[in-house]
């Protein structure tokens, strides 16, 4: 039931926004076509400006994952996270989530299929995937797009958000399931 409602919400959200923007613009006598072109003109430059940052991140994350270094790193962290009640199976996901959205989604999907969506691991993987964000992607791409080199406290804040998200997912999962 809720799954259906959510599916409908995400199906309708973007068409709704487009209609809202365009009808509101038309009502306020905005030349909608000219306004769209005017705003859209910037899109290309902003997108192209982040290529170096994307390439740097993708290369580093991919070699870390493909070489097997991530599995070793996850295994080293396993006893630490075992202390707070995290099953070792979800560790690669916890390590990967801040680095790469698509890899993390792949790992979460694999966990859900292997262990079943209605098991503790399946639920935990689902909640972790929704809770933490691709912090490093966001940091490098957002700062990179405007040429910021000194990130100041954005890095520790982002990492703290990921850790808090991990703890919060574990806590609520242990509480409910």
């Amino acid at each position: 039931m809720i799954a259906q409602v959510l599916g409908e919400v995400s199906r309708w959200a973007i068409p709704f926004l487009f209609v809202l923007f365009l009808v509101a613009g038309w009502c306020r006598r905005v030349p909608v076509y000219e306004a769209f072109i005017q705003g859209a003109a910037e899109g290309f430059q902003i997108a192209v400006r982040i290529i170096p940052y994307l390439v740097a991140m993708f290369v580093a994350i991919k070699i870390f994952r493909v070489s097997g270094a991530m599995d070793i790193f996850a295994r080293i962290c396993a006893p630490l996270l075992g202390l707070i009640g995290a099953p070792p199976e979800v560790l690669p996901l916890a390590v990967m989530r801040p680095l790469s959205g698509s890899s993390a989604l792949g790992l979460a999907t694999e966990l859900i299929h292997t262990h079943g969506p209605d098991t503790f691991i399946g639920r935990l993987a689902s909640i972790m995937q929704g809770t933490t964000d691709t912090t490093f992607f966001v940091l490098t791409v957002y700062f990179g797009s405007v040429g910021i080199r000194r990130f100041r406290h954005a890095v520790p804040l982002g990492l703290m958000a990921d850790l808090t998200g991990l703890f919060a997912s574990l806590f609520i999962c242990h509480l409910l399931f």
Partner: protein
Amino acid sequence: MLNLIWLFLILTGIVVAAFNGRIDLVTETFFSGANEGVKVCLDLIGLMTLWLGMLEVARQAGLIRILARLLRPFTVLFFPGVPSDHPALGAIIMNISANILGLGNAATPFGLKAMEELQKLNPRPDTATDAMCTFLAANTSCIVLVPATIVGVRVAAGSANAAEIVGPTLFATGLTMVVTLLADFCWRNFFRVRRRSAGR
């Protein structure tokens, strides 16, 4: 800090690959990784162009101003360095809204636009401002109301109750956002006090 993390990822990757006797993987992975980075950017060009066009229509229609005025109590509290009628706030609000609704591919264009606007207020162009750090903290810790992707994955895996994770996700993201914004708030004020006393 990012220098260290980047170096760590690449060097451990190469060392482990060499140790496993798969050193040929390194070259292959570097080239394919570089290609993937550019491909993500190519996908983004269309999205950026489309959403920035729509954003401009919404701005000229006055929708962004209405939204910014409604959320002013929050923006004044968390973005004291940004004038309350600045276009950066509109883009920030649209980015956060897209994140809340789980519209990942709409969030990035608004986020990059917000950074561009925030950069116009930056006196030192190579250093992040307080407002940028707050924005990134809010962005990465954002509340998620509609985790549509993962619910879809669960449906596909044959879950008896695919949406049961919506409430827990909302709780976990809400807690994360409160903790992160609180930390940012304390950090900001702590540093401001220290800088001021150092200046005396």
